[in-house]
């Protein structure tokens, strides 16, 4: 399983990359692999707010709908619109071109609640055991 060491992770298999006050959010390699062929995404628009632990959108494979949960709270400052036309990017490059949202964090301390790489890998190992 691929999980970069410079990201933080949720139990719902989202990742967060923090740069200053802005958090880039995506889904993990484990999540995309479990879902299979991703064919549809739906996210809030720029300027909307997301709340930590609340569902902010969905990623759908041919077979299933999967909710995405916000790892942090804040205002959406950028949305990866290219995923609307090319949702398969999430399967191909979930940590790069397949990012979902950029959020201006309202409470950067929320990051401390998230798992680091080691914790996340252990979490997935336990969950799939």
């Amino acid at each position: 399983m691929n999980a970069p060491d410079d990201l933080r992770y949720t139990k719902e298999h989202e990742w967060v990359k923090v740069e200053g006050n802005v958090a880039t959010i995506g889904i993990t390699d484990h999540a995309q692999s479990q879902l299979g062929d991703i064919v549809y995404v739906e996210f809030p628009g720029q300027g909307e707010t997301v709340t930590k632990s609340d569902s902010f959108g969905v990623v759908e494979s041919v077979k299933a709908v999967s909710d995405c949960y916000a790892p942090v709270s804040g205002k959406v400052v950028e949305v990866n619109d290219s995923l609307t036309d090319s949702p398969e990017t999430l399967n191909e490059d979930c940590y790069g071109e397949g990012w979902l949202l950029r959020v201006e964090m309202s409470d950067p301390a929320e990051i401390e609640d998230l798992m680091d790489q080691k914790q996340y890998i252990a979490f997935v190992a336990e969950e799939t055991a």
Partner: protein
Amino acid sequence: MPRKTPLYDEHVRLGARIVDFAGWEMPVQYTGVIDEHRAVRAAAGLFDVSHMGQLEITGPGATEAVQYLTTNDVRKMTDGRAQYSILCNERGTVVDDIIVYRFSPTRYMLVVNASNAAKDFAWCRSHLKGNAAIRDKSDEYALIAFQGPLAAKILSNFTDYDLPSMISYHFGEGKVAGKSAIIARTGYTGEDGFEIFTAPADAVHVWQALLEKGKGMGVAPAGLGARDTLRMEMKYSLYGHEITEETNPLESGLGWVVKLDTPDDFIGKAALVDVKKKGLSRALVGFKMQDSGIPRQGYPIIVAGKQAGIVTSGTMSPSLEYAIGIGFVPRESSALGTEISVDIRGRARKATIVETPFYRKKTV
């Protein structure tokens, strides 16, 4: 403990993701649903459907017994014919959809859904009429579906059976890759293809032979995921979705296998005659999404601003590359071209009722 088919180790070796389906550990996908779906449409796919049940009804009264259990007209069958049919209960709703195979007037086999196999056996046994016996032969068969435009050509390398003479919904007994098999020209994908019944011990040999030969021609193993998207593109019913014990076969568009005009009785006939007389209140339709979003089972269908129906199945169609759905709508709103909406996560998304099957084979 979930059960394993004789092909389980093959699936694992091929890298399948295994899921629990109807109490069986089954491959949902190998490389990916879309790839597998396209392999079936372009070349051929191999499906393990050994989890399905086989019930054998034999005896001097077998024809009468099957005629009473099923909605279609068994008396029209000849030896070596297969017939799509329905088991109904007295209320005229669906116990299961099945395929009936006639070996002789005194020997029939019913192939039933895995999820209903135990229920169907109990149902048929307790409603078995006249001089006939029923046996659950599910453990005596493995079942491989080999489906796609290249299936006949590839299979002909492995059998002495005269495949070109076998037309759709016929079957015969012969050898496949040296093993005794029942070969039926049936399937659930909309493609030409076969369902091959073998002894459990022979399944791996037959599976490997077909896959090895077909690999260079685009043949791939295909899982339950592709099986579902392929059947949805054809608007074929799936038990638990389009047909249930709460739906009757007439409203699900299966009137063509419900023969109310024969002199024979069958379980549910009186109820269905009544349903037909009163007229149907809803119809099962296929629709294409106009707005974004994928319809899924259970989503409400909205007609003229009011919730009026329900989605039974939906997906992003791998062949058509747009979202399609199947669902019940009021009869008066079921005409082709009718604009409906599907409530997807609280928002009404536009869709149009379209002709089905959604997918039609290119005829070149």
